[in-house]
């Protein structure tokens, strides 16, 4: 193993060991009282206050992907990569009123997954199945992306080959399998402390060494001008893509099953509302993280081989002493474990509650279900590892963008469904099918462009769909997810008119209007079960789900 930086690796491994200890300790402490916030992690009346929700959702959304892929995109393309900032600004006011409705109806009716809600609201197990499958498929590349983060860090330290990813997977699997949500939640504290420490140090130290911010932006400007692609500002034709990508990503974020898990774990509606103001602290950090890409340009950092994702780890290696680079790498590595664990739990829940229980084994006992959920979480992680091993990690950010296009197709049923039941279940299914097909077709027709506009790959090259392909005489591009969602909505609305005119039955609403505004103090509100050990709707204790 030539070229391995032993100091960095030692620090990195030390933090991983620490995190492993924390993970197992969390599992052992689960019934103890009064240990920090741990008593809030159990069953029954204990649920998450503002701080824990902040760490949990923050750990969920701002991941290793943030640390590695966003600056890599800024490094390569410039201003277009900065979309992550407006995206995480828009998302909170956008969902402010929506998540509290979701929280309320879920706590009244005992929903744990978005598919639970859709099943009850629209009285359609087919629609619920589609929502569940969409959630699982969209989450997989997201988990894969986290493993890409670990891979980039290991590669930078000189550790090569596939085995480190397998090791990371085993560690992840151990936490998730034995401790459920508790371990990643505790680890999120460690992760956030390390990440904020790294960012603060990076933002103070690196610009000082590079001659200030003016020099950093200047170097980036020079590079893009010389390369003839990208830029410190957006070209006019890229502005629509920038805005629609930010809006589309924001709409998609809280449709992901793992975000919904974080939302439902909150103690009450006020906790959620307060977090909509507190979570943007991470967005601010994200702005600085994105600019690490420009710092890398100014510092003349080069990636390891052709893996653009290693640009930030390489920058840290160039700029920091080895021991602190090790700390920063640990931040990225641990930052990957937390969301990956939560995502695999969320996907496993969808499988267990909305596929296994619904279709495969209707008389499953609670023990059966817990076991299935745990095994499913393993399978999901295995799928993510396979995705990394078999697909070029260079395309990790595009993979996640494709996931975003997919998950957006559940917006009419899940998000609009929270407000109205006017949309017909048959039309929602039709909209999903057509929207999904349109989205895939558009993504297929996005070429990957190299410097100077050379086509490197004909298909699956990103999410910026050229409007010229629709016959418009323009160079503008638009986020494929946004356009496919519009197609979906048009079909859903038109279909609803047709089906309503034909008087096709649309089932019975399993929820009541007052469910959506219920507060914790209300008599109808109940506590949700532990996400990993819960009983699906319809089983013991969930009898009221079907209204």
């Amino acid at each position, binding site marked *: 193993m030539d070229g391995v930086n032993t100091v960095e690796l030692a620090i990195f491994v030390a933090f991983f060991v620490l995190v492993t200890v924390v993970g197992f300790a969390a599992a052992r402490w689960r019934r103890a009282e009064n240990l920090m*916030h741990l008593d809030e992690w159990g069953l029954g*009346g204990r649920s998450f*206050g*503002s*701080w*824990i929700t902040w760490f949990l959702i923050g750990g969920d959304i701002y991941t290793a992907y943030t640390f590695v892929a966003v600056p890599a995109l800024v490094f390569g393309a410039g*201003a277009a990569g*900065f979309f992550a*900032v*407006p995206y*995480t*600004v*828009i998302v*909170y*006011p*956008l969902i*402010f*009123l929506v998540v*509290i*409705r979701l929280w309320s109806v879920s706590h009244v009716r005992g929903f744990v997954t978005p598919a639970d809600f859709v099943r009850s609201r629209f009285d359609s197990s087919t629609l619920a199945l589609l929502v569940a499958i969409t959630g699982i498929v969209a989450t997989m590349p997201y988990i894969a992306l986290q493993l890409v983060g670990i891979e980039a860090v290991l590669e930078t330290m000189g550790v090569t080959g596939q085995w480190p990813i397998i090791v990371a997977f085993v560690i992840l699997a151990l936490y998730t399998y034995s401790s459920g949500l508790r371990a990643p939640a505790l680890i999120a504290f460690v992760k956030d402390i390390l990440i904020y420490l790294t960012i603060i140090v990076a933002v103070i130290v690196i610009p000082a060494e590079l001659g*200030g*911010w*003016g*020099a*950093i*932006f200047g170097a980036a400007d020079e590079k893009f001008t010389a390369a003839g692609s990208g830029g*410190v*500002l*957006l070209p*006019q034709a890229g*502005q*629509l893509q*920038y*805005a629609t990508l*930010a*809006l589309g990503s924001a709409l998609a974020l809280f449709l992901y099953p793992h975000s919904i898990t974080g939302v439902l774990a909150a*103690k*009450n509606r*006020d*906790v959620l*509302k*307060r977090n*909509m*103001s*507190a979570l*943007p602290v991470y*967005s*601010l950090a994200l*702005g600085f993280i994105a*600019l690490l890409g420009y710092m890398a340009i100014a510092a003349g950092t080069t990636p390891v081989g052709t893996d653009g994702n290693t640009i930030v780890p390489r920058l840290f290696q160039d700029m920091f002493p080895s021991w602190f680079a090790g700390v920063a790498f640990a931040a990225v590595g641990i930052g990957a474990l937390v969301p990956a664990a939560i995502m695999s739990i969320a996907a496993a829940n969808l499988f267990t509650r909305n596929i296994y229980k619904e279709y495969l084994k209707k008389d499953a006992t609670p023990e059966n279900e817990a076991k299935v959920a745990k095994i499913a979480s393993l399978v999901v992680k295995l799928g993510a590892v396979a995705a990394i091993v078999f697909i070029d990690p260079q395309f990790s950010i595009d993979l996640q963008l494709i996931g975003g296009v997919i998950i957006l197709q559940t917006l009419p049923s899940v998000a609009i469904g929270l407000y109205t039941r006017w949309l017909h279940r048959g039309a929602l299914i039709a909209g999903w099918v057509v929207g999904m097909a349109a989205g895939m077709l558009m993504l297929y027709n996005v070429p990957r462009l190299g410097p100077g506009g050379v086509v490197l790959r004909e298909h699956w090259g990103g999410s910026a769909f050229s409007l010229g392909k629709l016959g418009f005489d323009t160079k503008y591009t638009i986020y494929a997810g946004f356009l496919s969602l519009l197609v979906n909505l048009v079909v859903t609305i038109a279909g609803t008119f047709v089906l309503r005119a034909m008087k096709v039955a649309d089932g019975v609403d399993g929820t009541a209007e*007052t469910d959506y*505004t219920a*507060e*914790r*103090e*209300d*008599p109808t509100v109940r506590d949700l079960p532990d996400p990993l050990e819960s009983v699906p709707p319809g089983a013991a204790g969930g009898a009221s789900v079907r209204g």
Partner: protein
Amino acid sequence: MSSPDTPPAGVAPRRSDRSPWNWLLVVPIVVPLLVPLYDHRDPQLFGWPFFYWVQLVFVALGVLTTALVYRATRRSPEERAAARRAADGPPAGPPTRDGGR
């Protein structure tokens, strides 16, 4: 469950999320989408082109509006008390208002 106590007259738990304050939330959603308005180099700040620093200002805008809407639309202590009484006695544990922050 025994029948709930009658809440005192004039104070009933709110049953709607509707409020004119909610319209404020439109501002931080729409402003970052108006890309042509801020896709510029000048005025610069600490060497940052306008495009970059103004988007960090948008973060503050989002915080401000969501915090304001939260403050303006939360249940009053009287409404909370009424709701708790309606819920057949308060649950054991700390009051909800100091929920961790």
